[in-house]
């Protein structure tokens, strides 16, 4: 347990009960809420970014992704359960695309927020690679374990960034049904990840 986790144990217990969307909404009034959101999704974002670029660059991009999310947290629109995760992965996708266009990352949001860049040693890069690979494998296993209709819904909503309405049309079901599928799938994935984190 880190020093941060020890000192904010009580706060985290309360925060852990909140949805991602609530955490983002509360960030302006309670900065620690963003820390909880970060802890929930750092490995997911890192795994998404790492799938396209080397780890040392992936960590920088991930830092920028969370910095952009923090900077624009007041512009986040809650469109139901899962929308915060979809939002941050959307930011990650844009940043990955930007990285392809730019020779070097300029980490604009990180600089504007006055954050110190986290530099990685070779040993840290190796350790992160191992952790992210393990997590990515876990995600794939858990995704595979989901019922077919839930797996499709979460894939189309989060990875392909389709709107609920468009997914509903494609599958000939109601928008509410799509929301329910995505919500169940995310809850199920979160439960699985939570179990492993506690082990």
């Amino acid at each position, binding site marked *: 347990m880190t020093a941060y986790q020890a000192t904010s144990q009580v706060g985290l217990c309360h925060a852990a009960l909140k949805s991602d969307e609530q955490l983002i909404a509360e960030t302006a009034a309670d*900065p620690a809420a963003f820390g909880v959101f970060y*802890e929930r999704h750092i490995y997911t974002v890192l795994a998404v970014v790492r799938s396209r670029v080397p780890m040392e660059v992936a960590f920088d991009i991930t*830092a920028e992704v969370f*910095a952009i999310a*923090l900077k624009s947290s007041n512009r986040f629109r809650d469109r139901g359960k899962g929308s915060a995760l979809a939002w941050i992965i959307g930011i990650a996708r844009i940043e990955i695309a930007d990285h392809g266009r730019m020779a070097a990352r300029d980490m604009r949001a990180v600089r504007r927020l*006055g954050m110190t860049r986290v530099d*990685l040693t070779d040993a840290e890069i190796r350790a992160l690679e191992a952790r992210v690979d393990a997590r990515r494998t876990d995600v794939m296993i858990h995704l595979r374990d989901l019922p077919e209709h839930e797996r499709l819904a979460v894939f189309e909503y989060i990875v392909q960034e389709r709107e609920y309405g468009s997914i509903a049309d494609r599958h000939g079901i109601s928008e509410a049904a799509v929301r329910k599928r995505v919500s169940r799938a995310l809850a199920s994935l979160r439960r699985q990840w939570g179990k492993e984190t506690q082990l």
Partner: protein
Amino acid sequence: VSQDPIDRLRDELVAAAKRKQIADARRLRRRRHGLIGGLGAMLVLVGAPIAASLTGVVELGSGTTRSGKTYTVEQLGGGVRVEGGSPFEGRRGEICQRIRVRDAAGELIVRTSACHAATSDEVVLGSAVFMAQLGEGVLVSGSVPSEVATVEVSGARPPELLSVAGTDRRAFIALSSDAAPVVTALNDDTDVVGRRRFELPEPSR
């Protein structure tokens, strides 16, 4: 202090979120302070074309429409009225404001967009529009950074400062009877933080 890069990044983000919380609160206080004077008019107005039907409906002052557009309406001598639309950020980062001037009957006399670059460090930026045909003086359109609380214009009452979407600057319009008006920017403690004299451009031949 944790050595884990994941924890280090989280600590950086939480610290940045705290700084942002303080900065947001400060910005909100400034904005309230700047706009409080003219918020008597809570109106429904003005989408794109400010229609003639507005006459008699619009109250003087400044405010925000339901769609979030800010505006000012100034009553001048002889019933002449200046309507400043919501200031906005231009394509090259310049500050722009659409301005309409109407006579006492509500007829449109002048319609123009005043823009000025907002890249300089100068506190008071802006441009002057010649209004001699109205016999009213010089119309100054400008902007100031967020630390400015009020603006004084020679020969005119203090104009309202309106937020400019996408920037930290706030815009104003003022009509001065002075042929070369001086705009003075003051902070919360009424210290002068910037001053600029607006000269009319030479008429083109």
